[in-house]
């Protein structure tokens, strides 16, 4: 390295970076594993020249100055190779000689992440920790006047409905007249939301699917998983496991050629069709699979060329009005499966959600509404979309539910909430709060990556490189050298662990409320919060 470093506007020191590598020369074995594993090549072998003074005791000879060399780790400061804090170096170091440390002051890198005029894009969630959901408490504890239930031994029916539920009068009339009754699925209220084959590595996808199949077939828990926009592997489409899968169609229609062609050979109907109109992490923006991840397999399933970025349009190109085109799209998808499969749209959290919902109430084929709040995760999005766009899920779902109550349709259109649920680790508490605010079902994505596969991403902007296919855990990579780190069997095991522990925790919440026979959707009298304005906004109890 030249001693006189050229100073350019984007020349940064290590101190200017969000993550600084702390390397201990005494412990380092110089094995090189850290530099090999670093997904962004932020560290490299450093050859350091150092002055040494030789001052023999007794002044037998005059002091001498010599130059010595030692080897170690050097952190790059070029914005293209910035440490993302994933700490894989620490994970592989046999002596614990290296670890990234979070900077103690605001980084300066943030001002230089637009080289070539390209703003930053990344994976992960909005970089803000915590949610309102974490502050909600469950306050209606059954005490003496009615007994609390035994979460461990009482019988519980933790199920929800997905699909258009008729009003009771019409339901009975249609039964008598042998009329068409919309398909309704009784499923577990916690679902795995859309993470596409492509965004996730094959091993990750396989692991989740195996876990879901095990939950259904061995544990009796009807857990469902959405494919995300990326199609579905042909063998899964033709297998009996398809009934556990919600096929997602989005504006890029990726994978739907394969799905349509598989229709005549399907042994089972899918659980449902999710039409994605928006996503919480990047509201008003389409899906994005960057070129790094579009290998032969992904290209084949999606029906696209290899190695091109796949940005879906922000909206479905056939769509010019909600009254007509959305209704038609819902109806077309319903028709493709002979009206035996529920079809529902999923939108980003937005202040216009009520307008969408009002429209769906008038569409007899709409089987629900998914709302993905601002804290949702993604494999790839512009940083600006992730950090600044979107609507918080709590008040969005509450408004939607109360809107349905006003219309008397709260049982007819299930609301599915997503977006940052369990972001602080409080999965069951967040899910229960949303259910009591009015959600019928909950979708999680990022939480599964974190809990079932060890995703390192966090809201302090750690890792978050899902977009470039370099996932150090092999979760969101299409490179076999990376995704072979992930054993699908172990992912499946963790998925099962997550759902079983969630089930126990959910019971630990609803049993003390005295609820066991039905999911407490809209049981807002059980909720309290110690912020007056939030309590007013959500129409729940203010408690201090």
């Amino acid at each position, binding site marked *: 390295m030249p001693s006189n470093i050229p100073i350019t506007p984007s020349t940064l020191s290590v101190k200017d970076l969000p993550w600084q590598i702390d390397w201990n020369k005494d412990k380092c074995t110089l094995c090189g594993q850290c530099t090999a594993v670093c997904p962004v090549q932020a560290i490299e072998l450093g050859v350091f020249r150092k002055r040494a003074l030789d001052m023999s005791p007794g002044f037998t000879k005059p002091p001498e100055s010599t130059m010595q060399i030692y080897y170690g780790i050097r952190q790059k400061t070029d914005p293209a190779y910035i440490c993302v804090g994933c700490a894989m170096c620490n994970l592989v170091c046999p002596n614990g000689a290296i670890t990234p440390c979070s900077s103690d002051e605001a980084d300066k890198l943030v001002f230089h992440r637009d080289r070539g005029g390209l703003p930053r894009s990344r994976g992960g969630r909005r970089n803000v920790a915590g949610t309102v959901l974490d502050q909600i408490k469950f306050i*209606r504890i*059954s005490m003496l*006047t*009615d*007994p609390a*239930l035994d979460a461990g031994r*009482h*019988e519980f*029916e933790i*199920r929800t*409905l997905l699909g258009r*539920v*008729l*009003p*009771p*009068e019409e*339901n*009975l009339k249609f*039964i*008598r007249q042998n009329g068409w*009754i919309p398909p*309704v699925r*009784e499923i577990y209220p916690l679902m795995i939301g859309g993470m596409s084959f492509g965004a996730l590595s094959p091993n990750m996808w396989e692991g989740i699917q195996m876990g879901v199949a095990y939950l259904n077939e061995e544990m009796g828990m009807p857990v469902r998983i959405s494919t995300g926009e990326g199609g579905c592997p042909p063998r899964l489409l033709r297998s009996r496991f398809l009934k556990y899968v919600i096929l997602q169609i989005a504006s890029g229609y990726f994978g739907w050629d394969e799905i349509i062609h598989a229709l005549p050979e399907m042994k089972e109907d899918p659980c449902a069709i999710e039409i994605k109109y928006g996503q919480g992490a990047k509201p008003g923006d389409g899906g994005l699979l960057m070129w790094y991840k579009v290998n032969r397999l992904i290209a084949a399933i999606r029906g696209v060329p290899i190695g091109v970025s796949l940005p879906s349009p922000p909206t479905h190109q056939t769509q010019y009005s909600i009254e007509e085109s959305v209704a038609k799209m819902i109806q077309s998808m319903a028709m493709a499966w002979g009206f035996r499969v529920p079809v529902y749209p999923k939108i980003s959290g937005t202040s216009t959600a009520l307008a969408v919902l009002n429209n769906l109430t008038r569409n007899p084929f709409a089987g629900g509404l998914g709302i993905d709040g601002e804290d949702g995760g993604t494999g790839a999005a512009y940083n600006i979309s992730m950090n600044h766009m979107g609507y918080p899920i709590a008040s969005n779902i509450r408004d939607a539910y109360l809107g349905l*109550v*006003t*219309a*008397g*349709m*709260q*049982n007819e259109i299930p609301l599915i909430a997503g977006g940052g649920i369990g972001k602080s680790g409080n999965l069951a508490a967040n899910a229960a709060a949303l259910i009591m605010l009015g959600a019928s079902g909950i979708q999680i994505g990022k939480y599964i990556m974190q809990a079932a596969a060890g995703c390192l991403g966090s809201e302090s902007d750690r890792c978050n490189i899902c977009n470039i296919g370099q996932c150090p855990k092999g979760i969101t990579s299409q490179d076999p050298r990376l995704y072979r780190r992930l054993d699908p069997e172990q992912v499946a095991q963790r998925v099962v662990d997550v759902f079983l522990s969630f089930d126990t925790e959910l019971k630990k919440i609803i049993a003390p*409320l*005295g*609820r*066991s*026979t*039905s999911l*407490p*959707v*809209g*049981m*807002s*009298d059980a909720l309290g919060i110690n912020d007056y304005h939030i309590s007013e906004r959500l129409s729940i109890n203010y408690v201090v």
Partner: protein
Amino acid sequence: MCRLFSITSEEPLSPMVAFEALDVMREGHDGSGVGLFLRDLGGPFEDMKDAPILSGIFTENGLKRLDAFMMNLGFMTKYKLPIKVSKTPPAGVPKRDIYLIRAYEYPEEWDGLDQLELHNRLVNIRLQLREMGRAEGDMMVFSFWPDVIMIKEIGEPLKVAQHLKLDRKDIQARVIMAQGRQNTNYAINLYACHPFFLQGFSTMTNGENTAFIPVRDYLQSRGFPGYTGYQSDSEVFTHILHYTLERLGLGIEAYKHIITPLQDADIAMHPDAKLLQQLKQSCRRLIIDGPNCVIGCLPDHTLFMVQDRKKLRPGVVGGRPGRYAFSSEICGLDAAIPDRDKTLDFQPMHLDTAIVGPNRQEVAVCRQTSPLPLPR
């Protein structure tokens, strides 16, 4: 937890039967309220089965306003049952001006109305009066319906009965329901006293209804003016009963399938699996989630008791042909019908609806796993 007692008898009985039965169960209520429901009336009301009877509590001013209101609608008083009380009420019982039980003649222009319209008008008048009373605090109206009397008051049940001098020949009924209230988390309010009444349907309940808020929200959004009130979480049971039988046209056997449906595995084995699965889905917001014991009365004078899925509340039915009683505790049954075959006493469990029909000859037990009669 409250205490419930109801009795159905071929011969008209004094309501004191019920008060005495409640009195032996007095550990279970705290004087925060008592409610009495009388139907299939004897005495002077025997000959005016069709005349709507207004039951309520009024101040002098409220009574004047009531008279003006009813006159204006064209209602003529047909019969008044005077209730004279001593000037000083017993401890715990508030002082009231007038306990009103009054039968009316329908306005002439109501002649020839179809029954549905007639019933809806009666509900609307009761709700209007209730609203007028809420505004001025001078009237409380419990029922306005033919062949039905309701009395509600705060206080120890037996003391209230003695205070109102209910042990008299002209207050008799073949169906009596009474509840001694144990106040829980809602304010003491006469409108929160069971039994509740709507268009011929009445229920009273033991236990809190943990799903009250979503159930209330759902009923209120049905677009029927009678689904209102809800000073007590138990009022929804009456309205769900009304909804099940009147709006859905189902029988009493289906009531339990609405409020506390079978689990899926049991539904799959049920002969009416398809119907029940659909009902469970479309009536999901009416699932009560207990723990509750509900005693109710239908317009045809059928009495029934139903337990929720948890079966945590006490309830027993027993008697002899011609006279049966439903009670929270066996001691209440013993007080009312001592001369029965106690070996035939029946405590409905989590799948049972116990029904005593209008002929009062037997206790029919409908298990939830049994086939349902077809929808009417």
